[in-house]
């Protein structure tokens, strides 16, 4: 096994592209080292990206926010501007694991690990996040929902590396929220997750919305019907009921040790409803 810590994204991409055998990127390592420990993977090459300056910072620009692939979740919580603009994405990132995990885990790692239960992905999809990818054939940018294609599977090609996630600039009177269900208060994998991002128009009426669900299908589900249910409303009771019903209808979960189909379907609607209310308040709605 080899350990490399390149100084540029290009070098990293080249190392990954040329690697023989199994090569893995190391950011926070909170998934990779666990899989190594239980013998699921035996890397021949580990490329540590934490020495690549471009990947270590959260940058704010006219276009919005750019979060480097090496940025630990805890740093997102410490960034006041990011927290103010995208509280839902930040709370999703900060829900991952313990303080110990927070110091290491990254949203790019959370994305590329491609778990259906990833906490940050529903929030990022709801937020309309974009992914900056660097590969042997140069750069490309894709919508975040295009990256994960199935449990443990991504659309990234050999040698392609995610350099950063970008979150768009926030229009006024906007808010987002992420809620997940876990049996304990901490340390668990989401049994169900729901994210809502919305923007209000005149008189606190929802003008635009995106609703997503996690852990209820092989990949994160964007639920346009649920968004439609609340657009043009002030989240009145029946609008929320319609939102919940739309979410339940969009679920195609599995029975496993963490939850049943019945449970996930029921709770998806409940969480979406609660998340919508929080997002609405954050947008300044009353």
């Amino acid at each position, binding site marked *: *096994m*080899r*350990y490399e*810590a390149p100084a540029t994204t290009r070098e990293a991409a080249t190392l990954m592209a040329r690697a023989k055998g199994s090569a893995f990127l*190391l950011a*926070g*390592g*909170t998934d990779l*080292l*666990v899989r*190594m*420990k*239980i013998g699921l993977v035996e*890397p021949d090459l*580990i490329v*540590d990206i*934490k020495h690549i300056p471009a990947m270590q910072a959260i940058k704010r620009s006219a276009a919005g926010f750019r979060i480097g692939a090496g940025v*630990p979740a*805890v740093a997102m919580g410490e960034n006041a501007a990011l927290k103010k603009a995208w509280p839902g994405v930040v709370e999703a990132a900060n829900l991952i*694991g*313990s*303080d*110990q*995990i927070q*110091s*290491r885990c990254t949203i790019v790692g959370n994305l590329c690990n491609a778990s259906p239960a990833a906490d940050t992905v529903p929030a990022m999809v709801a937020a309309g996040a974009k992914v900056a990818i660097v590969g042997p054939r140069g750069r490309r940018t894709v919508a975040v929902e295009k990256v994960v294609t199935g449990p443990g599977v991504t659309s990234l090609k050999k040698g392609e590396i995610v350099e950063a996630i970008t979150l768009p600039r926030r229009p006024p009177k906007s808010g987002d929220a992420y809620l997940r269900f876990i049996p304990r*208060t*901490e*340390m668990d994998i989401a049994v169900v997750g729901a994210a809502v991002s919305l923007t209000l128009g005149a008189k606190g009426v929802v003008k635009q919305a995106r609703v997503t669900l996690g852990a209820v299908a092989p990949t994160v589900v964007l639920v346009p019907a649920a968004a439609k249910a609340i657009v043009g409303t002030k989240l009145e009771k029946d609008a929320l009921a319609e939102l919940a019903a739309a979410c339940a209808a969009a679920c195609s979960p599995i029975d496993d040790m963490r939850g049943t189909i019945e449970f996930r379907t029921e709770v998806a609607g409940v969480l979406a409803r609660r998340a919508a209310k929080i997002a609405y308040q954050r947008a300044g709605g009353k």
Partner: protein
Amino acid sequence: MSGVHVSTTINGDPAEFVCPPGETLLDALRNRLGLTGAKEGCGTGDCGACSVIVDGRLVCSCLVLGAEVEGREVNTVEGLANGDTLHPLQTKFIEHAALQCGICTPGFLIAAKALLDRNPDPSEVEIRYALAGNLCRCTGYDKIVRAVDAAAKEVRKEVRKEARKKRR
């Protein structure tokens, strides 16, 4: 397999070791440097018994590669006391009987130190969530939370004392 040569700083002192590229910081600390204060309870980041602080951030040393701490600052339970003076957390853990078997204690002390370093006046809820990554099976956490709360008071006293000294 060729080892990685690592130069780092542990509890303020320079340290060097050679380890396989895939070896965790926890194994390097325990098996190469003789620092067995950090324990392996799970090896998967779920119990916190291996907690250490790297460059000011609380981590599970079982989820960090030894190779990663090249040029970094590592703090472990062995460095918590200041010479022959125990850290207030250590004193209060003993006073409040905050340990029974004691296997999780080093991890709790380190996690609690990371908390008090950034927030010397935590509420009970803040203490409980800051320690949620550390499992204890003996105490039901009651006396641990009380000990951290008591230690926080001590730390605040010391901070005030320091401030007064500076003013003079």
